[in-house]
């Protein structure tokens, strides 16, 4: 396992498992044994459909799993420190300052009653001890950095007065405010139209790469990860089913589900029909099998898949897949 974890990672998840208790039954595990570590400056894309546990991953790293869920097992370390050992106050100081979040739908996540300046200022005031003029100067600088035109005017705008793209930039400004070591982007840019999305992504890439910030880029759009992620991980049913360096992943995807995602993204109709033809995507939930969770939708599934849970195996250097019958090319 150690060979695929980078040396001195900024953030390292080991066996992270998040469970929600269920009345009269086994708890539902929305994340199962996630191992993932990001080197300083590394950008890792995490792709998955809704329900795969993407958002829970972001929230678990923040140690903000919504009730009644909880981190059942595993360890999250930031800069080598076990976050589980930190008290609430220390965790709070970490959030927003060392680990920042870029969210989706920023227009509903920004406080509707506060101006852009107040919201950036809140973060600056509570994490760095700046006085008022310094806060204002820094806020304007941040707005400029995220390419918001006319920051002197926009600093007094309320969220409802911003376009989706502007709001997304404001959220990026807030994330960058304290110069964090690690940023999680949770489905950011998903609500934007394509051109704005491209601009915002380019900006994000530039700001992150320039500063050497590590970025966990969670998305449902596998195509986006091709642009700027160093590594790509595919999440399915709370498990990483494939993870590898970007080039290896896109050139030679191993896991049937990853290929399904790629095919769905591909505009090529023939390729899509080929992969999607006889799968029953979105089939009704059957009884949980002990085997591969993807078995019910997998075209390659065989008897072994239904009984034996596949392990994450190294297919090529740094390229892992969780499949008994990985696709060979």
């Amino acid at each position, binding site marked *: 396992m150690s060979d695929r974890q980078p040396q001195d990672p900024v953030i390292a998840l080991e066996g992270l498992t998040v469970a929600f208790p269920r009345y009269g039954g086994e708890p539902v595990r929305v994340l199962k044994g996630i191992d993932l570590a990001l080197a300083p400056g590394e950008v890792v894309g995490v792709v998955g459909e809704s329900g795969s546990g993407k958002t829970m991953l972001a929230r678990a790293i923040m140690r*903000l799993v919504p009730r009644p869920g909880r981190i059942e097992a595993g360890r999250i370390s930031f800069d080598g420190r076990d976050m589980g050992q930190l008290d609430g106050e220390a965790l*709070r100081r970490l959030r*927003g300052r060392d680990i920042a979040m870029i969210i989706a739908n920023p227009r509903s996540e920004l406080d*509707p*009653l506060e101006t852009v300046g107040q919201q950036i200022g*809140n*973060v600056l005031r509570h994490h760095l001890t700046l006085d008022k003029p310094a806060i204002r100067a820094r806020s304007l600088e941040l707005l400029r950095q995220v390419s918001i035109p006319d920051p002197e005017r926009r600093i007094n705008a*309320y969220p409802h007065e911003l376009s989706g793209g502007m709001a997304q930039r404001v959220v990026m400004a807030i994330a960058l405010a304290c110069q964090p070591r690690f940023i999680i982007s949770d489905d950011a840019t998903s609500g934007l139209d394509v051109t704005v999305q491209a601009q915002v992504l380019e900006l994000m890439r530039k700001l992150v790469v320039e500063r050497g910030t590590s970025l966990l880029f969670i998305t449902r759009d596998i195509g986006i990860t091709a642009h700027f992620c160093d590594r790509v991980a595919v999440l399915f049913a709370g498990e990483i089913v494939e993870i590898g360096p970007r080039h290896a992943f896109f050139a030679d995807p191993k896991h049937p589900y990853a290929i399904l995602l790629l095919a769905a993204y591909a505009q090529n109709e023939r390729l899509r029909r080929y992969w999607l033809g006889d799968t029953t995507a979105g089939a009704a939930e059957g009884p949980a099998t002990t085997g591969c969770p993807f078995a019910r939708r997998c075209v390659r599934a065989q008897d072994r898949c239904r009984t034996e849970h596949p392990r994450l195996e190294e297919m090529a250097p740094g390229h892992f897949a969780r499949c008994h019958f990985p696709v060979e090319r």
Partner: protein
Amino acid sequence: MQLLAYLGRRLLFVAPQLVGILLVSFFLLKLIPGDPAVMMLGPFATDDGLARLRAELGLDRSLLEQFLIYLGNVLQGDLGTSWQTTLPVTTDLAQRFPATLELVTLALLLALAIGVPLGVAGARYKKGLLRTTADYYGLFAGALPDFWFGLVLIFLFYTTWALVPAPLGRLDFVILPPPEITGSLLIDSTLAGNWQALRNAAGHLVLPVLTLGLINAGPILKMTQSTMERMLESDFSRYAEMCGLPERVVARKALRNALPSVVTIVSVLYGFLIGGAVLVEIVFSWGGAGQYAVGGVLNADLNPVMGFVLYSAILSLVIYLIVDLIYFAIDPRTR
């Protein structure tokens, strides 16, 4: 500027709204069986006398005609006379409406002072003493009839411990009331420098204000708590938490976002209590507006009732206007 345009538009609708309210209440009141003439002349009236009185009161005309006559009088500032008090309704209400207003305003201030902090605490803490208090308070305040609670308070504080003056009106009979300026005894006696009256009026206010305040803190608490809980679970609170803002800052943001609902429930309670405090008014012989209107309904004395409706309607419109202005101030999206 936008605000002025908005106010102008609102005021434009005030007159038709008031006429509409009067129209509906007039016809509804006429539906209640009861003949004022019979009530006024008593059991030994002759048919002749009744007919004459009816003609005098205009009761022999059609309902529409009666309404138009009434409306014409109202426009000239004449709300008619109450046959029970034999005084013009405006005179009666000038005394009774402030009595009710003073009571209800103070009660709601008390209710706010209890309901909002408890509601906020109930939403912020998932367990603990404050949370339990909030839960039980909401339950009990919702279940207790206010007049009964008033009687209990009288029994304890007046009958048993004699801590407050007798629950008979707003002032002891031996106390000289201050000259009437605002109608609020507290304010008027302060203005007049009549400390004896001030102390006595305050003593009389304690129990009815406690009664209404403690009971009505219930709905305010419930509303504050549920809205606050919703706000604390909303996207922006979650985001604030992810930004590592301290819990109290997150709570303050949530409260600000919850305030419009609190303002709304208070305005609704205010409008309601003007008439709805009547049982408590009766228990404390308050001589308030609600009591006056109910007396009118029971004795087929319609002018007081109509007058009460008109005054309450105007008050409600004013309250809603104030509420809108508060929304305006709180929420930039309404600007």
